[in-house]
């Protein structure tokens, strides 16, 4: 039996057509980049929109080596995971404290953290880069990582707080009666139970740090230290850089985010809804 539908037959077709059109329109800019990246510098101006007639990988070679995209990818792949580990550890501890512990000023501190989770980066950028340079961390991975972890932790803490708040309190009490210390309760009882949420938090942290621009741009000025995101932004500003080369650079930069998506789609979906929707 056909499922009953709130659409009439015509409306159903119209909706299908609208969705198909929406998807085509949003894929076109991406198709354009991929197709341009495979055209030679000479072919692109004469054939800007159709599929490449003589596909070539020369743009990739140029972008990866002369454009240092490979180096930038490695930089990101080293710095971001370190940042994520620090971020996750800090957010778990703080989230547990806010969600399941009792102490003076808890509410005030939590509101402060919540407030900070929406600060614009440009509000902080001057002083952050100054601070990093005072710490002699300009052009170091550690400098960028510290700025990322500090900036993204308030939101992560908020997510972990809502998660721990909703966990049954009996778990903590039972562990306490067994004589476990607060540290043991967190790391041996609560954190292992929170693993799906920690995976979600890691993905959120990874995406935030991977795509971060303003702080990285100011802290990592030396070319050899740039992250992929900074590298792409700088290439974009380079006058006279040919579209096929820039396109190849973009495609290279898409690889890791797309892989993350394919591997961890479930956690990305959870991440979108974390901390906010409850009906």
């Amino acid at each position: 039996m056909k499922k009953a539908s709130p659409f009439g037959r015509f409306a159903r077709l119209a909706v299908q057509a609208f969705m198909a059109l929406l998807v085509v329109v949003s894929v076109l800019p991406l198709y354009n980049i991929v197709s341009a990246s495979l055209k030679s510098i000479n072919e692109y101006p004469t054939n800007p929109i159709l599929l490449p007639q003589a596909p070539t990988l020369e743009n990739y070679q140029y972008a990866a080596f002369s454009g240092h995209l490979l180096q930038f990818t490695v930089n990101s792949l080293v710095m971001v995971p370190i940042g994520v580990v620090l971020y996750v550890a800090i957010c778990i501890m703080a989230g547990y404290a806010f969600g399941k512990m009792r102490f003076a000023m808890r509410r005030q501190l939590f509101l402060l953290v919540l407030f900070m989770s929406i600060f614009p980066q440009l509000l902080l950028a001057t002083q952050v880069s100054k601070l990093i340079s005072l710490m002699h961390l300009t052009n170091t991975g550690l400098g960028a990582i510290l700025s990322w972890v500090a900036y993204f932790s308030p939101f992560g803490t908020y997510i972990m707080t809502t998660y721990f708040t909703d966990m049954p309190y009996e778990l903590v009490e039972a562990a306490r009666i067994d004589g476990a210390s607060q540290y043991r309760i967190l790391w041996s009882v609560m954190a292992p139970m929170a693993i799906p949420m920690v995976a979600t938090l890691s993905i959120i942290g990874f995406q935030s740090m991977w795509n971060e621009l303003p702080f990285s741009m100011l802290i990592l000025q030396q070319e050899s230290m740039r992250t992929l995101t900074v590298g792409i932004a700088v290439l974009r500003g380079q006058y006279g850089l040919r579209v096929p080369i820039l396109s190849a650079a973009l495609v290279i930069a898409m690889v890791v985010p797309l892989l993350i998506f394919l591997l961890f789609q479930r956690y990305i979906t959870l991440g979108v809804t974390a901390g906010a929707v409850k009906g």
Partner: protein
Amino acid sequence: MRYRRGLERDGAAPYIFLAPLLVLLAAFMIYPVVMNVVTSFTEWKGYGPWKWIGLANYKTMFADGQFWTSISNTALMVLYIPLSTIVTLLVAAFLREGIRGWKVYRAVLYIPNLLGYVLMGVIFSIYLRDDGALNVLIRAVIGAPIRFLITPVLAINVVGFLLVVFLHLGFGLIYFLAAMNGIDKEIYEAALIDGARFWKTFIKVTVPSIRFAVEFWVVFNFIEVFARMFSFIHTLTQGGPGYSTFTLEYGIFIQGFSKFKVGYASAWSTVLFVFCAIISIAQIRLMKSRDK
């Protein structure tokens, strides 16, 4: 945030757990915000000595056309929030009806969120330029290109539409679909038996049932418009043509890091801070009303 009464406090442990976070926040957020207010009363290049100049930066700012353009641009982008909310809700409701291939649609429309503002900004800067792919098609139809990124009034609307409506669509779909999942299916079945069509259930059932999610979505969009646009503008239009796609954030960047007028940029930052404080208060109130 539930709080159990009658139990003793946890001593030093919570402060130890919070210490790393609080140290980082003190150094990288509180200190910068306080210093920002201080430097807004000075003439300072970002290095070297300060000169105390009182309210002069604020006076200059309120007479600065770039500042008012930034404010009106931000206001324009806020106007895209209702459109974004309606479109996203509608598409989510379409997908909820189990349109064939809805999972594919959801995944494809999420790609821009995955790639992030920097990549999407560069991608659209290529796609929309005068000799870009879209204009090759447009030229074939109407004979002349549409100068999306060159005509000031078009450029700012392109930024607003892409950022507020298009780039968040995939994120919003997942978000609203999750919220719609929580609605009792029997309500829809009953509505169907009553012969209610899509529009009627959309307006009478779907939207009211996920009211809080919709309100959060609106607040989220305000945050994006005021506090998260820099990367996209920097890679799509670089604030141009002229300063016609400036927002407060972009103005702070240009004044502070390109013209080295850090004191002056700080005055802009103070205004941005006030806006963000207002948004934050709205957000906190919303959370309180939801938890009741």
